[in-house]
C-alpha cells in the first residue's frame, strides 16, 4: 500500500519531467505575427506630440495583418521549422436578399469578428462601406481552427466541415438557416460590401453554438473564400491580408532562431509595425499544471515516506514485543542481538520486496488516477485563463500549403455519436489534441522501480532503528523471568 503510493509518486515525478520536455516541444513552439506595440506606441507618442487627433490615428492604424503571400512564403521557405500554421481572414458581407438574424445587440454589425481581440477602432473595416454589412465573414484555414470549435462552444448540427479545399463552401448558423430555409447543399448569394459583386456560396454545414451572446450572422468559410469579400485594396489581386497568423514549430527549441530569422528576412513585417514572437502562454499554462502535479507528487512522496516510516516502526515494534519471549529464548541460547535484528530485518525486507513487486503492478494505475485528478482541476483552471486570450494555438491540426492536405489531418479518429463519420474529423483531432497535451506518460521507467526499491528499503531500515534499540536493551534473564 505504502510502496504503491511511493511508486505512484515516482512515476508521476518522472512522467512529469518527460512531459515537460514534450510540452516544450509541442506547446512552447507557437510563433505568431503580432503588432509591434512598442514601435506603435513610439509612433503614437511622436504623432501625439505633433498635435494629431488620436481618433484619426487609431483609424489609420491597421490590425496586425500580413499578406497571404508573405505568410505562405514564410511557411514554404521554413518547412524544416514549421509543423503547422493557421491564419484568418475577416470580412463583412451584404446579406443581399437574405434575412439576417437579429443580434442580441451588444456589438455593431459587421465588426464582431470572432476571435479578434482588437478594439473596433483598430478594425480595417473602418470605411463607410462596412456600415451596410449585415453578415460577418470569418475565414479560417479549417473548421478546427474556429475559436468556438476550439473552446467547444460550436458544434456541427448538420452537414460537414470545411477545409482549405472547400472553395465557396460556407458554414452557417442554425438560426440563419431556419430564417432563410437553407439546408446543407443549398446555394445562397451574398454581396461584397465594397464592389457589390455577388458571391454564391454552398451550405456545407450548419452549426449550433452554446454561446448565448453569439452573433448568428457569422458565416464561417475557408480563408480563400472569405478573401472574396474583402475590398479590392485588401484583396490585392489575390494577395489578400490575413490575420492571427500562427506558426507551430516542429521543435520549440528552434522557435527563437526562427523568430530571429523571420524578423530579419521579412522586412515587410517591420514596415507594417509587425513582428513575430514566440507565444509561450499555452506552454506556461500547461507546464504550470504539470508542475503542480509534480509538486503534488512531491508532497505525496514526503507524506507517504514519513507515514511509512512511522507505521512500519509501529508494526515492527509491536512485532518485536510479541516476539519478546522468542527473542529472549534465542538470546539465552546464545543468539546475538545483531542476529536477532538481522533476522527481523530480513523478514521485513522479504515482505517489503514482495510488497514492492505488487506495488509495481498497481502503482502505475494509482499514478494514473492521482495525476488525472490533479490535471482535471488544473486544466480546468488553465482553460479558464486561456479563454480570456483568444485564438488558442492548435497543435497538430491543419496542413502545409500545397502539401498533401488530407494526409496530415488523418488521425485514428474516435467517433463521437453526434458527429457525422468522417475520416478526418477535426473535432476528433481537437479532442485527441487536448488529451495528449496534458496526459502524462505514466508508464513506469526502470529508474522508477529502482527508486521505489531503494526508497522502500531505506524506509524499512529507518523504521527498524527504534525497534532495534529496544532489542539491544533486552536482557534474556529478565524476559525469561517475567514468564516464569
Amino acid at each position, binding site marked *: 500500500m505504502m510502496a504503491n503510493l511511493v511508486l505512484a509518486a515516482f512515476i508521476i515525478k518522472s512522467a512529469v519531467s518527460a512531459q515537460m520536455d514534450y510540452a516544450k516541444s509541442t506547446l512552447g513552439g507557437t510563433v505568431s505575427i503580432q503588432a509591434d506595440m512598442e514601435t506603435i506606441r513610439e509612433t503614437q507618442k511622436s504623432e501625439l506630440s505633433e498635435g494629431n487627433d488620436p481618433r484619426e490615428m487609431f483609424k489609420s492604424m491597421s490590425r496586425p495583418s500580413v499578406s497571404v503571400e508573405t505568410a505562405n512564403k514564410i511557411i514554404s521557405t521554413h518547412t524544416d521549422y514549421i509543423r503547422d500554421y493557421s491564419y484568418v481572414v475577416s470580412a463583412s458581407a451584404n446579406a443581399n436578399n437574405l434575412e439576417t438574424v437579429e443580434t442580441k445587440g451588444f456589438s455593431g454589425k459587421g465588426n464582431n469578428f470572432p476571435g479578434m481581440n482588437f478594439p473596433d477602432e483598430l478594425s480595417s473595416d473602418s470605411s463607410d462601406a462596412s456600415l451596410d454589412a449585415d453578415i460577418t465573414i470569418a475565414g479560417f484555414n479549417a473548421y478546427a481552427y474556429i475559436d468556438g470549435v476550439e473552446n467547444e462552444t460550436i458544434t456541427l448540427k448538420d452537414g460537414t466541415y470545411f477545409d482549405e479545399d472547400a472553395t465557396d463552401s460556407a458554414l452557417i448558423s442554425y438560426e440563419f438557416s431556419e430564417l432563410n430555409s437553407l439546408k446543407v447543399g443549398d446555394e445562397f448569394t451574398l454581396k461584397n460590401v465594397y464592389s457589390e459583386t455577388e458571391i454564391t456560396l454552398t451550405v456545407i454545414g450548419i452549426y449550433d453554438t452554446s454561446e448565448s451572446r453569439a452573433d448568428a450572422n457569422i458565416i464561417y468559410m475557408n480563408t480563400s473564400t472569405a478573401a472574396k469579400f474583402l475590398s479590392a485594396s485588401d484583396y490585392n489581386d489575390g494577395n489578400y491580408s490575413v490575420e492571427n497568423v500562427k506558426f507551430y514549430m516542429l521543435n520549440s527549441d528552434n522557435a527563437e532562431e526562427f523568430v530571429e530569422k523571420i524578423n530579419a528576412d521579412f522586412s515587410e513585417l517591420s514596415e507594417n509595425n509587425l513582428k513575430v514572437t514566440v507565444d509561450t502562454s499555452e506552454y506556461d499554462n500547461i507546464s504550470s499544471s504539470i508542475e503542480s502535479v509534480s509538486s503534488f507528487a512531491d508532497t505525496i512522496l514526503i507524506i507517504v515516506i514519513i507515514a511509512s516510516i512511522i507505521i512500519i516502526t509501529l508494526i515492527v515494534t509491536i512485532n518485536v514485543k510479541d516476539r519478546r519471549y522468542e527473542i529472549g*529464548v*534465542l538470546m539465552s541460547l546464545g543468539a546475538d542481538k545483531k542476529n536477532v535484528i538481522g533476522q527481523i530485518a530480513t523478514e521485513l525486507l522479504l515482505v517489503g520486496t514482495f510488497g514492492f513487486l505488487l506495488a509495481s503492478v498497481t502503482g502505475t494505475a494509482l499514478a494514473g488516477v492521482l495525476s488525472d485528478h490533479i490535471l482535471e482541476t488544473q486544466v480546468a483552471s488553465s482553460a479558464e485563463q486561456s479563454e480570456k486570450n483568444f485564438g488558442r494555438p492548435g497543435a497538430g491540426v491543419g496542413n502545409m500549403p500545397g502539401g498533401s492536405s488530407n494526409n496530415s489531418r488523418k488521425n485514428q479518429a474516435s467517433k463521437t455519436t453526434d458527429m457525422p463519420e468522417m475520416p478526418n474529423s477535426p473535432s476528433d483531432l481537437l479532442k485527441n489534441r487536448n488529451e495528449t497535451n496534458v496526459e502524462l506518460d505514466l508508464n513506469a521507467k526502470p529508474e522508477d522501480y529502482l527508486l521505489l526499491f531503494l526508497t522502500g528499503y531505506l524506509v524499512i531500515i529507518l523504521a527498524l532503528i527504534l525497534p532495534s534499540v529496544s532489542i539491544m536493551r533486552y536482557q534474556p*534473564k529478565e524476559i*525469561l523471568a517475567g514468564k*516464569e
Partner: protein
Amino acid sequence: MSDKKNVLVVENLSYSYKNGDHEQKILDNINAEFKSGKVYAIVGESGSGKTTLLSLISALDKLQSGDIKFNNKSLKKISGQEFRLKYVNIVFQSYNLIKYMTAAENVQVASDFDGRKTDPNIYLKKVGITEDEGKRLVNKLSGGQQQRVAIARALASASPIIMADEPTGNLDEETEEKIIEIFKDLAHKENKIVIIVTHSRQVADKADKILTLRRGKLS
C-alpha cells in the same frame, strides 16, 4: 567428541538480590570445580539459589563478586552471548520453548544461529518424542513432553557444558530414568560437563558428584 579435558571453575562467587532497600544474599563465597566427562547434581531446598547459580554460570546474570572460568578463561573477558553460544547450553526449569513453533523447530532453532545443520528428529527420538509429535506446536504437547523437547534442544547443541534446571520435574519415573541415562551418556561418551539441578534424591544419586547448596554455601 573431544578427549580434551575441559574444566569449569567457580571462584569465590557471591551473589545477592536487592529487594527494595535490603540486600538478600543468595550465594556466599562459593568455590567449585566441574570437569568434563562427569555428571554433577546440585541439590538444595527451594529458594536456596540453585537457579541463581545456574544463571551465573550460563552468563545470564552479571557477576557481582568472584569469578567463573572456563579452561582458565574468565567469563568477564567475553560477552555473555558468546559464552552461551560457544560453551554452555541450558535446559530451563520453565522449558523456555517458543510456543508458536513446532517441537522440531524449537530443537532446530539453536543450531540455526550457531551455523550447524542438524536433524531435530534424532534428538527428539532420544528423549522419546516421535516424529509426529515433533510436528506439533509445543503448546499442544503435555508438560512432560515439553520438558523433553527442551532437553532435546540442549542435546542438539555442541556446547561442552550442559546445564539443566529441574529437568525431570514433570516426568514419570520411567522417562526420568531414560533422561538421566541420556545425561550420563553426554558426560561419559561425549565428554561434556553436565550439571543437573534437582531436588530429587533419586536423580542426584545417579550423578557422579552431588553438591548441596545450603544457606549460600555449596558443599
